Every structure is written in C-alpha cells, then in structure tokens.
C-alpha cells in the first residue's frame, strides 16, 4: 500500500513540475530564448494567489483575474524586452533574465515583505480522503494533478492538431519560411511567450495553498525545472511530460529509500541520462 501512495505522491509532484517546465521548454524550444526568470513567474503566480484570494475572498474569482494579469505582463515583457533578444546570444538572454529575477524579488520584498504567508485551500476542496488506517490524501492535491492533466491535454491538442499549432511548430524550425508564407510570426511568438509565463504563474497559483508563499520560492523550483527540460530534450513538450514524471517519482522514491542521497538523486539521474542521450530523451534535431 505504501508503494502506491508513494507512486501517487511522485506523480502528483511530477505533474506540477510539468506545468512549470512546459512553459520553459516552449519558450526555449520555439523562440530560442533562455528565460531564467521563469521561476519568478511561478513566484508571482503564488503571491498573486495569496493577494487576490485574500482580496476577493475566493480562489475561483482570483484565478481568472490572475491569469489575465500575468498574461498581460508576459505580453508587455515580450514586446518591450524579450523580442529584442531573439537574435542575441544566450549570454545576453541569461544576463537579462537574471536581472529580471533580481527586480522581481525586490518588488516582492517591497510589496509583500519577507514573511511566509499561507494561502487557504478553497472550501470546496479542503477535505481529505482516508487511504489507510492513519493516512489521508488531501483532495486538493488530487485536484492539482487533475488540472495539470487537463492543461497538458489541451496543449497537446493545440500544438499537434490545430493550424496555429502547426505555425508554432514550423516557426521553431524555420522562422523565415513561415514569415514568407504570410504568417505573422512575431504575433505568434508574443502569444507563446505570454502563454508560457502564464503557465508558470498558474502552476504557482494552484501550488500556493499546499506550498505557502515565501521569498526565494522561484529560484528553488527553477533548478528542478531546468533538470526536467534538459532530461526531456529542450523544446519537447512530450519530453517535458515524461521527464517531469520521472523526476517526480525518482525524487519521491529517493527520499524514502536512500534518504542520505535524496538531495542528489535527481541530478544523478540527469547525469546518467545525459551520458546515454546527450540531446535529452525526446529532442528532435
């Protein structure tokens, strides 16, 4: 029984990682922009959830409001800053997005202070299902997993089955060709970027009730996110999914079986996989 619960734990953690990593891999894979500030959007999402949930009194009103705010923020950032970095090398992108991290962290400190804050779980979902004689599983965690799956399915359909998805995929391989076909790739990029950061913020938002919000939360998760993206193959959504689940499960099992090495388990996995497939599991290139 413990095994199944641990598996559930691993999958649940993995799905949340996927939500975060998919945005990172999209932005990097399609536009070639290395965005270190991705973790900051996770943090922004969590803090907005804290702020809006308190202000509006309900997660259900806070969520759409917040998605709109972050989407607009992503749009502006792309238009004003990131669009100038597409033709620069990665070092410039790293420097710029690192600067963004510092700016966001300081803004966070000014606006919300440095304290830890809890975000209440929505009334409707604040129950637990008994699993064993003394262990229950919080319904909200199951809700997170369900939401992640729905988003993943939606992304799959849009990218693989629709015309926009086709343009996005084509744009990632040959930008000039897509432009010459009369498709406005700039607009598409802008949307992809806004969508990518919105995904990160959304992950932060739905994770906030279980993780609480605290300074530096973005940096911590960013590192794991990069591990997911690298293992999965940069730019591959499918890879991000497989890698996120793999990391979630390895991290969980590692903590239980080899507690001494739990901190390094996922990095060992990354090292081993990269020796075997340097391009990542699913990179098509």
């Amino acid at each position, binding site marked *: *029984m*413990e095994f199944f*619960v*641990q598996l559930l*734990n*691993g999958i*649940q*953690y993995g799905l949340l990682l996927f939500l975060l990593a998919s945005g990172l891999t999209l932005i990097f894979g399609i536009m070639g922009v290395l965005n270190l500030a991705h973790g900051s959007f996770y943090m922004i999402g969590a803090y907005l959830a804290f702020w809006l949930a308190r202000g509006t009194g309900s997660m259900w009103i806070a969520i759409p409001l917040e998605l709109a705010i972050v989407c607009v923020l992503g749009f502006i950032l792309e238009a004003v800053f990131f669009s100038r970095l597409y033709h620069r090398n990665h070092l410039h992108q790293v420097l710029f997005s690192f600067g963004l991290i510092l700016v966001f962290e300081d803004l966070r*400190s000014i606006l919300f*202070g*440095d*304290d*830890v*804050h*809890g975000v*209440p*779980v929505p009334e409707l979902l604040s129950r*637990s299902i*008994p699993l*064993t004689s*003394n*262990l*229950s*599983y*919080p319904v*909200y*965690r199951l809700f997170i997993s369900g939401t992640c799956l729905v988003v993943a399915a939606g992304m799959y359909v849009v990218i693989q089955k629709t015309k926009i998805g086709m343009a996005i995929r084509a744009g990632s391989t040959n930008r000039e060709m897509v432009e010459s076909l009369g498709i406005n790739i700039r607009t598409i990029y802008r949307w992809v970027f806004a969508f990518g950061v919105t995904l990160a913020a959304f992950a932060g938002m739905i994770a906030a009730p*279980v*993780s*609480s919000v*605290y*300074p*530096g*939360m973005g940096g*911590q998760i960013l590192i794991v996110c990069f591990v997911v993206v690298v293992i999965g193959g940069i730019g591959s959504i499918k890879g991000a999914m497989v890698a996120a689940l793999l990391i979630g499960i390895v*991290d*969980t*099992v590692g*903590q*239980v079986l080899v*507690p*001494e090495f*739990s*901190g390094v388990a996922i990095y060992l996995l990354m090292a081993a996989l990269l020796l075997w497939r340097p391009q990542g599991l699913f990179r098509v290139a």
Partner: protein
Amino acid sequence: MTHRRLGGRRDFLKAAGCFTAAALVPGRLARAQAAKLRIGLMLPYTGTYAALGNAITNGFKLAVTERGGKLGGRELEYFTVDDESDPSKAPENTNKLVQRDKVDVLIGTVHSGVALGMVKIARETGTLLVIPNAGAAAATGDLCAPNIFRTSFTNWQTGYPMGKIVVDRGFKNVVTITWKYAAGEESASGFAEGLAKAGGKVVKELWVPFPQVEFQALLTSIASLKPDAVYTFFAGAGAVKFVKDYAAAGLKGNVPLFGSGFLTDGVLEAQGEAAQGLETTLHYGDGLDTPRNKSFREAYSKAYKSDADVYAVQGYDTGLLLAAGLDAVRGDATQKNQLIAGLEKARIESPRGAWTLSKAHNPIQDIYLRKVVGVQNKVVGVAHKALEDPARGCSMKRT
C-alpha cells in the same frame, strides 16, 4: 660584545617605551571614554532572515534606549553590515567591521554558517563577539573562546527537554524528521538524547535536504511506520508547509507532533488551523505570563509598532548583557579581561526569565513548554529548569 650593546639599547628602548605608554595612559583613557563606543551589527537585513535581523536590531536598541542611549556611561555609534545570510561572504563582512570600522563590540548573527565565520575572525583578532541568535553548537563548543558570547540558545537546548516530555506522555517510539543541516541535526540529536535518557527510542530518522519543502513522501513513510509520536525541527517557510502538510495528510489526529519552538514561531498566522494545539519547547514564548515580559512587550510594540518575538528578546538581552559588562569597566572596552569577567558574572533579568552564562558563555536558562492557542505560543510550563548546554569540545576555563 655587539650583542650585549644591542641588548642594552633594546633595554633602554623598552624602558623608554614603557615610560611613554605609562605617560599616555590617562590621556588615552580619557579619550576612550569621551569617544563613542563602536558597535558593529552584522545581521541579515535582506533575504529570508531579514525580519529576524530587524527584530534583533530593534530589541538591542530598545535595551540601549532604556539606558538613556548609553552603555557603561558611553554613547554608541553603530556600524551596520548586511550579512545576507551568506556564509561565503562572512569573513569579508566581518573584516569590514573589525579592520575598517575598528568596532569595540561585534554583534551577529542569525545564520549559523555566517556566525561560525564570525567566530573564526573573533578568535583570530580577539574582538568581543556576541551572538544574538545562531544556535550552532561549535560557537560555544569546539570553537569556544573567552571573547565569544551567546545570548540565544544552542540547538541542543531547544530539543533535549522535549525527550522527557514525550516519554512522560506515554510515547516511546518516536520518528524524527528535519532538514539535513547543522541546526536540524543538532536539534534532533539533542531530542534523541533526552528521549533515550527518559527511556524512549528514536525508531527512524527522516531527513529532508535543506531547504526543500516537499514532504509528501516522508509523511507517507511516517504513516506506514506508525510511531507513537513525531519530533521535528523546521523553521520559516519549511515550518509552515510541514505543519500544514502534516495536518492535511490526516496525521495530526493520529500521530502527535512535537517540535523545537521554531516550528511555531513567527509563522502561526500562515499555519492557521493546522498549528492549533501543537506543543513545542523553546527558551521563550510570546504568551509568557510574567510582569517582566508584559512590560517588555508593551515597550517594544510602542517603539516599533509591531509585536516582539523571540528574536527581539535575544537582541534585547544582548543589550542587557553588554550593559552589565560595560558597567563593570565603566565603559572602557579596552580593559578586555575585566570586561569579560563582568559579562561572565552578569545575571540577565530577561523577558524570558532570568539567566546566567555557562562556562562556555552560553545562557543557562529555563526551557518552556508552549502550546499553540490562536496566534500565540502559550507557555504551559517549564520543560527544563536552568538547562545548560553540555558544551562538548570546549575546554575553556573561566577567567
């Protein structure tokens, strides 16, 4: 021949030097008393521990204000460095205060790693160091020194008394879970020692890499291990999440949770319902019902428009301790030995209750058992009277 002559000249120079020095002493003394006492504050003013650094500073300045802005009759001049809780910058930051600003007293800090960096330099330079928080055993253990003092606690002190309490409640088999870093390890081993002494046993030690906050897997392990009770050390964000996750996993009603006081300090608002009824041990509780604590809390909230916490008390006590030491030498910090003797003899009438210093310069203090009621840690009893840290590895004798 030459040697003797040279020796003779040296003797002459020495004598002359002594004479000059003796002639200068009164003047120097007078100048030292007129000049302001240089206080170096090296604390975190940004980052996760910023709130703690500010509380310590506020507490210290409150103690000084209550003495008319003077310690040992001298006015103070503050030199402040933000240590950013970054151990790699500790030597450089400490040197800024010691070498550049030439402070008489060094106060810091919160993070144990940074504090040990300060200890190293204090040992090398002989600068007087008072640690207002960091609980690393080494500072008053392996690395203890005549010029190093602590006004807070050791991690061992906050864990050890809980062992007996847990056994007294009838719980014998206990699981410990904490971050795998110095504070967590020292607190858990202190608890294990107290538990073993009272006849209990740690059945399993669970570790979380610092500063990770994903506990779900280990909570599942706890459920399947079915211990009588769980002991934990977490602080800040980790404490909030652990307490909430513990309750959400349905363990709160089944396996009683105990912890060192940092589990429920400064985070009760964020923990909300999940923390209600939790019992922890610490050298202070904001709900401590004594006139001394009440008057301190009133003065603090009047001065800073916020509520005092354990960190504010530690900062305040740092001020009280220095006042006692400097009074003994009438403000002349250059009389090192007398100053140290004055500090060692001090009896601090703290908001947490009176305490004195051990041979290793760590407080001998009452450790309270506290219970969370609303957003307050109510003190329900004394877990251990006048607890002294064993100060393992410290061979220092009192001056």
